[in-house]
């Protein structure tokens, strides 16, 4: 294929990738082009090959990652199929920012790629200064240690380091996964600043509402990694919402509501727009107060670590059949509260009482829940016979293959596996799920909602830590908001949404609630 023409920075044609020993292509026959300064999002359900495609376009497959790539990939100024990353043509930010950062100080991190490229020392210093003088690097200090940065700041540093490379294209994989609303907004603003100077961008992201305003075009892959549709962002997203054609995507609330309204009006000309909106967003069935017996009580509990209170004077109780949401900014102490409730941490002051109730805890990183290399060994470790474990795994919609390594499942599947085995094992009364929705596509999210509802119906007290307040409001009967280790609020979801939008809580106002409020919702019962 001829090199990119007519202002094209990247031209890819018929790109397909197959990994060693795989029986089918991970990505199939993708053709796309990227012009200078253009922003394109790769969308698709979990396992659709978005990251694989990004790596193939960068040349990392097959140069750095074993895999067979067919088709052609041409970057302007480079030979066909060359490794584009690290050359100044393209810079990449991987999904896992913990693994992305390789140096111990901010300036060393920013200089790493520049040193590799052999730039003059003065040029490196100039670029470091420039990177720290504007978003996303603004606020970082040259000599600060990378290890002391929060997740949000690490993500920003990774972006700043990519920006310092002054690439013609930026490839970013899930820039806002695991970030709270405010940090996600900052990261998107940082990306916007990066792209405003003419840098092209290729983004891989599940949370479309965050990157929607950033990208002019989207390429949607289906579950098998084949291109489903490509075109202008708003047109494509509206079309997908209207046709309900991409169940794996987490489409923005306004598009889902608009599509629902169109469908309702087509069926019955006279519809209550607010009622349709609340129904679509799930705000018409907010759970009421639970009246069962208390299964867990935390009384004025304080947890100290590293000489400071990571949780201070926290009190709450959870009743049987109740789903309690826990929300707060990154680093506020949400996960610590989950571990305290599970009995994994002892309070330095106050007390935690579980009324004869066994608890299960599914961590933010579900891989930590597994300690063996085979499913049958994992079942044995938990005191389960294989038939019982296999039945639980099958009920979770996963293949009960006793030889399979628990970590061979995808991130979302690992979470379901951990939950299924824990439920089979403990006959618990309290379940604690730490950020179970992170990185899930639309299908995974729906399955998780079903699981949580089933747990509550079975009489369990369920604690769910999450950043997506729209989603949390839909599944929880009550939400606790934590800020800097202290409880800022403990109220019904509607009240939490109202106070968040009013700016009274340290959370980013969620788009679904903003939309509903704009349509006249008064945060009460559905009309």
């Amino acid at each position, binding site marked *: 294929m001829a090199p990119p023409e007519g202002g094209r920075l990247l031209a890819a044609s018929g790109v397909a990738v197959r990994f060693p020993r795989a029986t089918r292509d991970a990505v199939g026959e993708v053709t796309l082009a990227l012009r200078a300064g253009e922003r394109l999002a790769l969308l698709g359900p979990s396992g659709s090959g978005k990251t694989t495609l990004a790596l193939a376009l960068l040349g990392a497959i097959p140069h750095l990652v074993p895999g067979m790539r067919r088709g052609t990939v041409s970057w302007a100024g480079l030979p066909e199929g060359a490794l584009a990353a*690290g050359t100044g043509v393209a810079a990449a930010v991987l999904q896992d920012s913990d693994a992305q950062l390789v140096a111990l100080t901010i*300036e060393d991190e920013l200089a790493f790629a520049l*040193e590799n490229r052999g730039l003059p020392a003065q040029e490196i210093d100039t670029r470091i200064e420039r990177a720290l003088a504007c978003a996303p690097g603004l606020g970082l200090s040259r000599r600060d240690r990378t290890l002391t940065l929060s997740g949000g700041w690490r993500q920003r540093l990774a972006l700043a380091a990519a920006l310092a490379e002054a690439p013609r294209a930026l490839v970013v994989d899930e820039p806002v996964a695991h970030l709270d609303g405010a940090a996600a907004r900052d990261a998107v603003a940082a990306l916007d600043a990066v792209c405003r100077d003419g840098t092209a961008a290729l983004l891989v992201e599940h949370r479309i509402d965050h990157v929607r305003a950033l990208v002019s075009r989207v390429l949607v892959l289906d579950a098998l990694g084949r291109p489903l549709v490509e075109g202008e962002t708003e047109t494509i997203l509206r079309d997908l919402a209207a046709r309900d054609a991409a169940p794996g995507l987490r489409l923005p609330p306004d598009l889902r509501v608009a599509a629902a309204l169109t469908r309702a009006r087509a069926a019955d000309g006279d519809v209550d727009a607010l009622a349709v909106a609340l129904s679509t967003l799930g705000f018409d069935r907010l759970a009421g107060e639970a009246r069962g017996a208390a299964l867990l009580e935390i009384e004025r509990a304080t947890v100290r670590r590293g000489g400071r209170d990571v949780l201070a004077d926290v009190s709450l109780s959870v009743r049987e059949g109740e789903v309690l949401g826990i929300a707060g900014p990154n680093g506020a102490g949400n996960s610590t509260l989950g571990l305290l409730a599970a009995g994994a941490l002892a309070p330095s002051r106050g007390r935690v009482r579980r009324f004869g109730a066994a608890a299960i805890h599914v961590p933010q990183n579900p891989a930590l829940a597994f*300690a063996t290399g085979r499913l049958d060994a994992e079942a044995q470790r938990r005191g389960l016979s294989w038939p019982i474990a296999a039945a639980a795994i099958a009920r979770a919609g996963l293949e009960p293959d006793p030889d399979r390594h628990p970590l061979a499942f995808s991130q979302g599947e690992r979470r379901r596996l951990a939950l299924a085995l824990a439920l089979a094992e403990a006959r618990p009364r309290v379940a604690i799920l730490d950020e179970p929705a992170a990185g899930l596509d639309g299908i995974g999210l729906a399955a998780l909602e079903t699981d949580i509802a089933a747990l509550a119906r079975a009489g369990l007290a369920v604690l769910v830590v999450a950043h997506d307040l729209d989603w949390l409001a839909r599944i929880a009967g009550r939400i606790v908001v934590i800020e800097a280790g202290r409880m800022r609020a403990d109220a019904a979801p509607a009240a939490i949404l109202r106070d968040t939008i009013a700016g009274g809580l340290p959370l980013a106002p969620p788009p679904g609630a903003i939309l509903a409020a704009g349509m006249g919702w008064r945060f009460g019962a559905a009309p």
Partner: protein
Amino acid sequence: MTRLDPLTKLGVAFAVIAFATLSDRAAELAALAILLCVLILGVARVAPRRFALALAPFMFFAVTSSWIYAVAPSNVYGWSGWQVALAVGLRTVTVGLVSMLFAFTTAPGDLARALVHRARLPRRFVFGALAAIQFLPVLAEEARLARLVARAALPSDASRLALALAGLRADAVIALLAGAIRRAGTAALAMELRGLSVASGVGSAWRVPRAGRRDVVFAALTLAVLALLRMIFAAAI
């Protein structure tokens, strides 16, 4: 001391470690250890708590490696078992203090650049090792979380012993290592995507530390102190 050239410091550190390793005089080792403590706390201004935390593993090894000499009959130079134990323990602590002083006063990035540009070590090896250092706290945090998750799986009436032992299984360590290896693979990919292999030769000569007159004075002063210690304690015997 943070301004000193890392390679000169490294050479001097090796010299002091060799001195301590070859010394069998408890008083000489004790004097050297006190001097190092003064440098760490007084000159490098390391906080006492941080100092104590860093010293703890060396103290542990000092005790565990020396107690056998204290309780077993000894015929080494006709010394008592306690004398041998004291020398071995002090030697371990002294070597630890030298390592601590070097680590507290050396920026890893500066050392890496000096090793690549002046010692001509391969760039991939040095920066790979630097990235591995960055992993250690992350790995430690994951191990802590894995233990907490294992604790959470215990029944609410679990004994203190069961809580203390939760997660301390060989297979849990293997699972943790498997996760670390996967993460190391991702880090290697990230480094390659940022041009580690594209680097022509040793890369840019950005902020490469150079040895100067100050470093010569430092090395000479250290050797003089070691010679003085040897003279004082040789005369004392």
